[in-house]
């Protein structure tokens, strides 16, 4: 076991690294954090997911304050979908409390592994198009005011968009909230899927709005985590600080790296961690 100071420094460094990876892949720091903590630092998954859930609030609030300035985030769409993510998060957090109190941790390892491996698909088939194909508005477009516009600096034009299938978005968001509460992650990839694929919103709107939503979802789950004692102060403190620093560095690097090879390296890390989590859940070493 590491002495306290060394342990603390290790936590800060690992979470800073996870924050950088999270910012670069758009997956959020928690995706890498929980596997590294549980597989390599001997931290119980309960505390790892508790610290990770707290850290997603830090990155979400930190980044959201910057995105709001850009006016790309669609607050209406985000808030509308928050009904589902917060409800899902409550159910997910209560479910995991049941799992932990019955010592069924292996379920969480396996689900986490599956979620990691499923991200691989999303990473590799990342939408090639900046803007979604034009669609006809449906009844939800009008009722839930699913439209907006933003200025796209990369395309150098004003982009007007509209969203459809609000109900499908809500269903996916409930599931995203559930996974967030269950695993202690932001589940940003699922949120992006809900907006990008189901509601046909532009990628930039989906990612920034998803980021904004993560904080609210995580805050809902974290209060339940607090109640059940999953938030270990030493770990949560180091993780929150580390991830904040990492996300800050990550967004600075992001502007310069768009290389495809880097995406493949990250994907390889995802596969590696995903398989290890599943093996751990099935009772094999690591």
């Amino acid at each position, binding site marked *: 076991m590491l002495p306290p100071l060394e342990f603390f420094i290790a936590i800060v460094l690992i979470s800073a690294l996870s924050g950088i990876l999270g910012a670069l892949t758009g997956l959020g720091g928690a995706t890498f954090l929980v596997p590294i903590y549980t597989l390599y630092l001997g931290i119980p998954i309960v505390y790892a997911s508790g610290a990770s859930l707290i850290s997603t609030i830090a990155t979400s609030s930190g980044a959201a304050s910057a995105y709001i300035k850009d006016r790309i985030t669609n607050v209406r769409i985000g808030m509308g979908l928050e009904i589902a993510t917060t409800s899902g998060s409550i159910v997910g957090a209560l479910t995991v409390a049941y799992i932990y109190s019955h010592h069924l941790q292996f379920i969480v390892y396996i689900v986490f592994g599956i979620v990691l491996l499923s991200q691989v698909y999303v990473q590799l088939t990342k939408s090639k198009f900046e803007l979604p194909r034009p669609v006809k508005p449906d009844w939800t477009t009008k009722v839930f005011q699913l439209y907006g516009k933003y200025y796209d600096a990369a395309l150098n034009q004003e982009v007007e968009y509209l969203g459809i299938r609000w109900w499908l978005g809500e269903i996916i968001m409930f599931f995203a909230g559930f996974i967030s509460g269950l695993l202690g992650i932001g589940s940003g990839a699922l949120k992006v899927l809900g907006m990008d694929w189901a509601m046909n919103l532009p990628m930039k709107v989906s990612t920034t709005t998803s980021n904004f939503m993560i904080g609210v979802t995580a805050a809902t789950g974290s209060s339940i985590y607090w109640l*059940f004692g999953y938030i270990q102060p030493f770990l949560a403190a180091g993780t929150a600080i580390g991830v*904040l620093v990492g996300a800050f560095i990550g967004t600075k690097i992001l502007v310069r790296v768009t290389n495809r090879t880097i995406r493949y390296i990250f994907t390889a890390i995802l596969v590696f961690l995903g398989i290890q989590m599943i093996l751990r859940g099935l009772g094999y070493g690591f």
Partner: protein
Amino acid sequence: MDFNDVIGYTLRIGVIISATIIIIGVIMLFIFNSSNNFTLNQIAAPNSIVNSSIFKPNEIFSGLPKPYALDYIYLGLMILIATPVARVLLGIIQFAREKNKLYTIITAIVFFNLMFAIFLLPLIIGK
């Protein structure tokens, strides 16, 4: 100032304040080598017995005048959790000002969910 900027600054200030308090708490923890009658070694163990189940949010403030590092760390974490809550609350005000009835109600439901998780569930579960 645009209301969106108010929201942006609220989030940023919330994160900065909470990070500062957490860092103060960590420094105190290493200076005093203990907190709340736990030794640093007990607190820093990977599977530590010290966790949030023994720290009731309303009791944290009573520890602040004493040099209890963990109370500072938990206060910082509470402020961090409170930033998205504040954001939703400001959202209600924002939509009300825009006279957008539907979204004022929707945001109020989101706020209710948050309040339900933070205040009502502990009462229901009775922990």
